[in-house]
């Protein structure tokens, strides 16, 4: 189980064969994770993490857990709208169908880092690992950036030129 706990002291590429690509994409087999960011928390209690998962394989998979030594507890949340209200709720996993891309973004899916172990500031980065139902694990490095930069950082590539 040691592989599952990829904390601050562990190198992003040590846990599996695939080293992170220079463009900030992390992968394991047919799962690719990119645009990994943590919003600089406004209070030091909790922070939100966002990324994009692409499943380039022929079999669907499911993100079932995210682990990081930076937080005492990690949950995967989605925002649901009910009667005009937005409410976050924890989910047990997020399906990533084959040849599909899931964007975690404000107002949609996000990873909640609770019980932060240290204050996180813009410029910091943390290690985390994404655990999939298939047993695949993708180790990532998340950069901490201010909330105001998120919309630009998380814009999909196909958004380019769209303004």
């Amino acid at each position, binding site marked *: 189980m040691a592989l599952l706990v990829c904390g601050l002291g562990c190198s992003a590429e040590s846990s599996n064969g695939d080293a992170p690509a220079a463009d900030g994409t992390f992968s394991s087999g047919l799962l690719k994770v990119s645009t990994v960011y943590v919003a600089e928390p406004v209070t030091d209690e909790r922070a939100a993490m966002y990324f994009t998962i692409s499943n380039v394989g022929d079999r669907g998979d499911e993100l079932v857990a995210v682990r990081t030594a930076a937080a005492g507890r990690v949950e995967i949340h989605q925002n649901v709208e009910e009667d*005009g209200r937005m409410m976050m*709720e924890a989910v047990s996993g997020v399906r990533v169908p084959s040849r599909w891309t899931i964007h975690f973004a*404000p*107002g949609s899916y*996000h990873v909640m880092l609770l019980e932060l172990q240290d204050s996180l500031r813009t410029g910091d980065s943390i290690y985390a690992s994404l655990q999939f139902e298939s047993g695949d694990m993708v180790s990532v490095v998340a950069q901490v950036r201010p909330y105001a930069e998120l*919309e630009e950082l998380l814009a999909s590539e196909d958004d380019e030129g769209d303004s």
Partner: protein
Amino acid sequence: MRASDTFDARAPRLSARSRSVLNEPNLILVSLLLAAGCSRAPATDPGAEYRGFLLVDARPKVDFVLMDTEGQPFDFRERTDGYVTLVFFGYTYCPDICPVHMANIGAVLKEASPDVRGRVKVVFVTTDPERDTPEQIRTWLDNFDPSFIGLRGDMEKVNEIQVALGLPPAVKGEVEEDGSYLVGHSAYVLAFTSDNLAHLLYAFGTRQVDWASDLPKLVAENWE
């Protein structure tokens, strides 16, 4: 899996961008429009085009007094009279919707001309008075813009204000073992203009370019 599970940050933006004309507070309709990523937008004068949702029936201000972050009473109508006033109900423990709205507005105001900046007030009202102390609200808002006004009152009163403004009341979620809880609340920013009426509603997903486009228009608009 539902199709909406795959939506990403772009989906709400597309709809927030186009001008949509809505009748009275029909938030369900708004959410349907958002979910569908479409709008029933009649083409209007492009120069006057807003990226928020235009309310056919403008909403009047509501009389209320809540405590500001200095612990002083804040008379909403009196203190925002004649200003473009952006009102948002949320809570500082909220890690996703609330800080993104506030950060985007703060970032745009920072770059705005003094003429625009000086005519805009941003009022944040907590929907979590239990945990949001005046100090907590102040610290949180200062991250986005120290000029943002933070207000606090008891939950019942704050919910009455929201309903009077045509927004759904906030709902406290289930309390976890560790005492933490979430609060469901409207994700809309209500925009009052110099005529002290709210003509526009801004959904979550409103981008900085949208605020940068709309704020000067809101300041210049006289709605005549």
